[in-house]
């Protein structure tokens, strides 16, 4: 199975999957929280949070990457605090995951927020009158009814993370085996004489993964929607 991909290409694919899965898994709780706060919350600074969440969508990726570099480098305000704790992002695959998570965050939050907004408050009130605490209302009513949107957000974020290029290459460079994901690998192969073959194979992998993610998300949300609406 690995025959048609060279070891370097295979390494990039594996790394991309690891980086994207980590990015989505780690940002999912925060994404849910932000989506919930934006959908149901009434608090000062709501518009500010909304702007912050959407910022990576509008900023040039190279700017996001540079800001990450400034903040998380070994001398940066957060990087220097995390360094003694053994947590490091600069030029590590964890940094690629961080960049991917931040770039994918707006795409994750938006469908989730819309899904939470679509859950009728009337049903949540009914659950409360039946003795359910706010946490239980969320787990048993809000989340199951919003599940199609939550899944769509996670898959969209995964697909975006797989394709992230600008912020990643600015923040953690393009180190084979550490930070060379599929998009940065394609870029590197294209800079290399005779690299077109490898680049094309990775392009095919990218297209297949993106299509696969879309089909799975469609199938999942249709299945869940059927279960929820019945």
């Amino acid at each position, binding site marked *: 199975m690995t025959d048609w991909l060279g070891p370097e290409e295979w390494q990039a694919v594996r790394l991309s999957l690891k980086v994207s899965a980590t990015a989505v898994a780690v940002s999912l709780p925060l994404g849910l929280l932000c989506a919930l706060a934006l959908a149901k919350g009434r608090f000062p600074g709501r518009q500010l949070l909304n702007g912050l969440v959407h910022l990576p969508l509008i900023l040039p990726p190279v700017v996001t990457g540079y800001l990450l570099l400034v903040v998380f480098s070994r001398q940066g305000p957060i990087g220097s605090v995390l360094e003694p704790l053994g947590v490091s992002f600069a030029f590590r695959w964890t940094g690629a995951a961080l960049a991917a998570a931040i770039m994918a965050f707006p795409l994750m939050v938006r469908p989730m927020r819309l899904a939470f907004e679509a859950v009728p408050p009337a049903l949540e009130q*009914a659950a409360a*009158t039946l003795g359910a*605490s706010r946490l239980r209302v969320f787990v*048993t009513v809000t989340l199951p009814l919003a599940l199609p949107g939550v899944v769509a957000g996670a898959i969209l974020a995964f697909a975006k993370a797989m394709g992230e290029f600008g912020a990643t290459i600015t923040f953690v460079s393009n180190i084979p085996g550490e930070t060379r994901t599929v998009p940065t690998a394609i870029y590197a192969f294209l800079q290399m004489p005779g690299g077109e073959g490898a680049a094309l194979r990775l392009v095919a992998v990218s297209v297949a993964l993106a299509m696969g993610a879309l089909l799975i998300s469609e199938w999942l949300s249709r299945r869940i929607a059927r279960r929820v609406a019945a």
Partner: protein
Amino acid sequence: MIEVHVKKRLGGFDLDADFAAPPGVIALFGKSGSGKTSVINAVAGLMRPEAGRIEIDGTLLFDRTRRIDVPVHRRRIGYVFQDARLFPHMSVAKNLAYGGSHERDRVIEMLGLSELLDRRPAALSGGEKQRVAIGRALMSHPRLLLMDEPLSALDAARKAEILPWLERLRDEAGLPILYVSHAASEVARLATTVVVMEAGRVGRVGAVAEVLSDPAAVGMIGAQEAGAVVRARIAGLDRIDGLTELALSGGRIVLPGRLGGIGTHLRLRISAQDVILAREKPEGLSALNILPAEVTALDEGPEGVAVGLACGADRLLARVTRRSARALRLEPGLRLWAIVKASAVAPDDVGGAA
């Protein structure tokens, strides 16, 4: 005792409702927009009053001055909403069990739910949904049940299907119920106490027969909806003509249809506009129901005169025009005849005892 006092500014009007009532079915009755739903939302904890106090059977749920405000999920107040609000992603069985399984088997039997347990809410009729919603609220073991026009979204056939279940609930479950309605027929059938709401305030509180037959309350209830509630016993059945003869404390009346077995006790609503008054006992009239009565009170409103009548131990209510009131020289103490049109008593208005 159910003691409710809530004050809140709502849009363009001030809610300031204050009443106390013994347990039973307490009907919050009034025109739409009179603040009924706001009151029960405050009792449920879904709306926070600006001032007031809510106490149910000795348990304080809200007291502004003492800064007590029990959160919704700790109030143990069951709420049956107008639109059922079943959870669409759960089966009927899971909906029922959501708040607990207090007297599960009895509730399922009483409301006839055993056939529905495996179904999804989307596969239920409106009447079935309301029955499940009632069962779900009961199984959460509430100290008080709130019902916000549980029948208003249903057509006449579905209403007729649910009303007997509600009567059973009142007579068997022994649970106090606060029932919001703007339909006099429902109130007359179900309520023990009536709280009449008018523009955010409580206009009248009292036993159902007393309030509904009070001419002074007609203005708040609405002329079309006004009508007294009487108790009756089935005294005879005429199978050939398809009639039921009812004994009231002040005489006998005959109604079409077979309303039950001989000896059955009923409560009956007689709409004020279906009672005709006469000074002399009429002869040769197609109406069969002529009862001796005495005028107890008169209330003149913009739409006519409401006449309170004593008929044996029962109270009746009639509505006449001002001109008729003058022509009949109506005044308290006058003895006259009340004629009730037999076909005027709708099946909706005939309910079980209690």
